[in-house]
């Protein structure tokens, strides 16, 4: 292990629903609206498919931030999925906060298929936040760190 | 019913009628108006820049006193109503203004727009109820054709003041009906009288008031009524001012049979001469 301090490059997982946010991310791409490469997107059919377990797993594996994007409330392709997601995440995030994973490391944002700008702005601000928080030290499975 | 009452500068002097009749009527209706202690002038105009704080503090002080007494704040003058409601909205909804104003005020507990502000007309409509008011009328003004003159300050901006429909208001008409008279609806009742412009440009204001008078007369009004001392002044200055203009509280006092009792009290009050002297001295 080198003693030199490594530059902090956060690992950020973004769960995007297929119908709105993933399309919003595509629009951000086709509009060439940049955001940091630290963000990696996982496509899910709906924000309600995101099991809190996935988010815990991400932190366990060394993620520094997890963001979940879905359709705007009321616009869910499956009509009610994002409402469930919102409730689940509210609970999960307060629990995470309680055990020391700062609130800033998790976020829920509604991005429609037409909101490429919002997607890019959201990612920029989220990444900025993660940089300001620094590396996540809680929850991480030490065996995953090198 | 007990309310905090903010009379405002003009009701102490030139518009003492508006005040005296209001107090007499309120008493007749079983409404207690408890005057804010050591109130200061609201400024007559809502501060022009969104960045002004000091000019809003006199309102915040009054609003906070009402809050501490857990009372609704009532105004009689349109201008006070306008300024008070808008400052209250700032305190409730604009974080920056709230913080800065509270920093100045050093209150026991920061003020955040908790007080309800009502114009006396709203009290009559929403708290007393025009139907109830009607029952308390002892001397209905039957046969009188009265045009309501709203002006600007009661109505606009409508979203903030939430007073009445700004383009087709009816609260004063309903009031006129409740006291037994006949309201005359005319389209200029929400147009400006010229306001403060009459200080330096009397002609401009005169022209505007003439339009208002003409329209009201055309639709058959015999009297105009208003809640604003400045509107009353400007309308009276209109060259063709053939219609008498009275405060709504005078009509109310008359209908409730308490007019005569308060007539004598305000005789001979004037302010202009004193102000002139004051200014010349300084």
């Amino acid at each position, binding site marked *: 292990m080198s003693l030199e301090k490594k530059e902090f490059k956060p*690992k950020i*997982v973004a769960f995007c629903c*297929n*119908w709105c946010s*993933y*399309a919003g*991310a*595509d629009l*951000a*791409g*086709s509009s*060439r*609206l*940049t*955001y940091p*490469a630290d963000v*990696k*997107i*996982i*496509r*899910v*059919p*709906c924000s*309600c*498919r*995101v*099991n*809190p*377990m*996935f988010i815990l*797993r*991400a932190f366990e*594996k*060394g*993620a520094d931030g997890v963001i979940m994007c879905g359709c705007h409330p009321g*616009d869910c*392709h*499956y*009509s*009610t*999925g994002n409402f*469930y997601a919102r409730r*689940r995440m509210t609970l999960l995030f307060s629990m995470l906060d309680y055990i020391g994973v700062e609130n800033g490391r998790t976020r829920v944002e509604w991005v429609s298929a037409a909101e490429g700008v919002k997607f*890019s702005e959201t990612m920029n601000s989220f990444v900025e936040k993660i940089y300001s928080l620094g590396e996540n030290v809680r929850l991480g499975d030490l065996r*995953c760190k090198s | 019913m007990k309310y905090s009452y903010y009379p405002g500068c003009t009701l102490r002097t030139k518009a003492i009628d508006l005040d005296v009749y209001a107090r007499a009527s309120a008493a007749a209706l079983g409404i207690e108006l408890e005057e804010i202690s050591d109130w200061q002038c609201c400024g007559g105009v809502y501060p022009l820049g969104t960045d002004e704080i000091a000019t809003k503090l006199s309102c915040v002080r009054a609003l906070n006193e009402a809050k501490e007494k857990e009372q609704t704040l009532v105004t009689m003058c349109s201008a006070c109503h306008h300024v008070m409601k808008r400052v209250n909205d700032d305190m409730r909804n604009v974080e920056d203004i709230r913080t800065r104003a509270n920093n100045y005020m050093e209150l026991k507990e920061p003020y955040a727009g908790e007080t309800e502000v009502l114009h006396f007309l709203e009290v009559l409509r929403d708290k007393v109820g025009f139907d109830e008011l009607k029952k308390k009328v002892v001397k209905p003004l039957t046969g009188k054709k009265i045009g309501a003159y709203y002006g600007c300050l009661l109505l606009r901006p409508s979203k903030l003041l939430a007073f009445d*429909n*700004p*383009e*087709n208001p009816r609260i004063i008409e309903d009031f006129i009906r409740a006291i037994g008279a006949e309201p005359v*609806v005319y*389209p*200029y009742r929400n147009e400006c009288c010229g306001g403060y412009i009459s200080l330096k440009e009397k002609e401009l204001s005169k022209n505007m008031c003439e339009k208002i008078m003409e*329209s009201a007369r*055309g*639709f*058959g009004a015999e009297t105009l009524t208003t809640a604003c001392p400045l509107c009353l002044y400007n309308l009276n200055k209109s060259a063709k001012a053939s219609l008498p203009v009275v405060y709504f509280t005078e009509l109310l006092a008359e209908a409730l049979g308490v007019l005569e009792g308060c007539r004598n009290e305000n005789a001979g009050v004037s302010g202009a001469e004193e102000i002139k002297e004051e200014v010349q001295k300084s």
Partner: protein
Amino acid sequence: MQRIGVFVCHCGSNIAATVDVSKVAEMALMEPGVVHAEDYQYMCSEAGQAKIAAAIQEKNLTGMVVCSCSPRMHEATFRKAAERAGLNPYMVEIANIREHCSWIHKDVEEATKKAVILMRAAIAKVNLNAPLQPGESRVTKRALVIGGGIAGIQTAIDIADAGYEVDIVEKTPSIGGRMSQLDKTFPTLDCSACILTPKMVEASAHEKINIYTYSEVEKVSGFVGDFTVDIRKKARSVDMDKCTGCGVCQEKCPSKKAPSEFNRGLNTRSAIYTPFAQAIPNVPVIDREACIKFKTGKCGLCAKVCQAGAVDYEQKDEIVTEKYGAIVVATGFDTIKLDQYDEYAYSQSKDVITSLELERVMNAAGPTHGHLERLSDGKAPKEIVFIQCVGSRCSDDRGKPYCSKICCMYTAKHAMLIRDKYPDVNVTVFYIDVRTPGKNFDEFYRRAVEQYGVNYIKGQVGKVIPQPNGKLLVQGSDLLDNKQILKEADMVVLATAIEPNPDVRKIATMLTASIDTNNFLTEAHAKLRPVESPTAGIFLSGVCQGPKDIPETVAQAGAAAVKAIGLLAKDKLLTNPCTAQSDILLCNGCSTCENVCPYGAITYEDKEVNDHGIRETRRIAVVNSALCQGCGACTVACPSGAMDLQGFSNRQIIAEVDAICR
């Protein structure tokens, strides 16, 4: 162990300029399960697809990853290519290295690193993919059209002409819609009834079309190809079969004070009524709110005078349940309420009217029998002012933010018709912009100005001031002359914004069709799928999708019909195999999943389970894969972890998470 092939696309320079594609391919070979990796200029091209096919066959691939553009773009393409080469299409995953990588990053090293990670996540997922088989569902060869205006009528006729059964459900007593209320139509000035009535007759006479008037959709269940719909036939109080349409009941009815909906409340009608003379069906209904018999129990005159004995006071609402393969929404529009625009004195003066009211005033069957007159005193006007954009293009909360699209043209029409019939009447139009994009539209507007001398003034009106002499003083801007204008008028006509029929929100909810902030139904794609709802099997016809005029509405109605026909022509539909499934060994039948399922796809069955040698009967959740849309709500709600989603399983997503965080 899977045998995975990785195909990295250059997309010309779209990807290759920012991502080192050969490096990505090289890195792929180091991942578990990968037996083949290559990069190529255009993977989606025929040559690219041939490369994929060749690799599948030569290397005997069991799964593949394409690193390319968004799966929303070409997932279907690559899945078909794989299927042709003998690979199950659900063994294909896409790593989106264009929209999510090359297009948004500039630094080649950084972008390449990210592309590799995205590829790894996709590989990790494919390693856990299983071949899936789409199910099949049947298609009921019958369409439902909601709304019987010109949009609904045209859609119904087009579908029926293709040989399929169609039901129209119309809320009011007659089909015809808004168009039946119009007098003349732009830009040809032919009479609206003359072109609409034959269509109404055609629809009602068509052997494949069945019309439910005075009826509303009550409940919708099912899915594309197999919807079940409850239709409420409101009690008409008149027997449709017995009534001969003689009209005597309407003549004799003593209650004639109900405002006429058809004439926009400008006059009254009887309690038993048909909305207009050409109504289809020509069978009256009794308005029970207005009928003396229903209010007091006395009267019954209509029953007495009806020789056919058709009047039936006992009639009750009836629910009809029907099955449909496709549903077309054609619910149309109404004008907005003007209570937020009192500066135009609409509520203060009878001589301030909306354009739709003017249509009725101009119409021979209208309240003034087609004479242009003031509604206050019946006098002929000499000066008419039109105000444009009343409630349209308003970003405050009083009006609508959109352009209502039809007003510029109908105002030119009204102005022209008035100047033509009453040359001594002056017509002034206050406008903000005149918008005339359409065939022969601008020519039409110019004719109003040049031939008919209509006075167009650029500027909005601030206030309409009723005068004691009954005239209306219009205070407006003339922006080109920089003047404030005071114009005395006898009548003022407001080009009132249009909005979707208020019922559409309720209907959209029943259909799970999405709706925008203005209550217009959303298209599946604004440009490429303009007549389809994102919800499969739901199609959009007419103004319910956005403001449009008659020619556009008819064109869109036809397009919606074609899409519906395309669906009805199929005998079977393939269903998305990415559905939920419950593990019978883990499920404890708690009903949690049932409660969160928006499609009612989950039921419970008693099943015999062999749990490690213990045989017992348990209550187990069963997913109807034809109903399941694959949202995954149940998978997270399930407390025992029995529910999982095929194609997006817990293990697959976790593998992706792990690959990204590695």
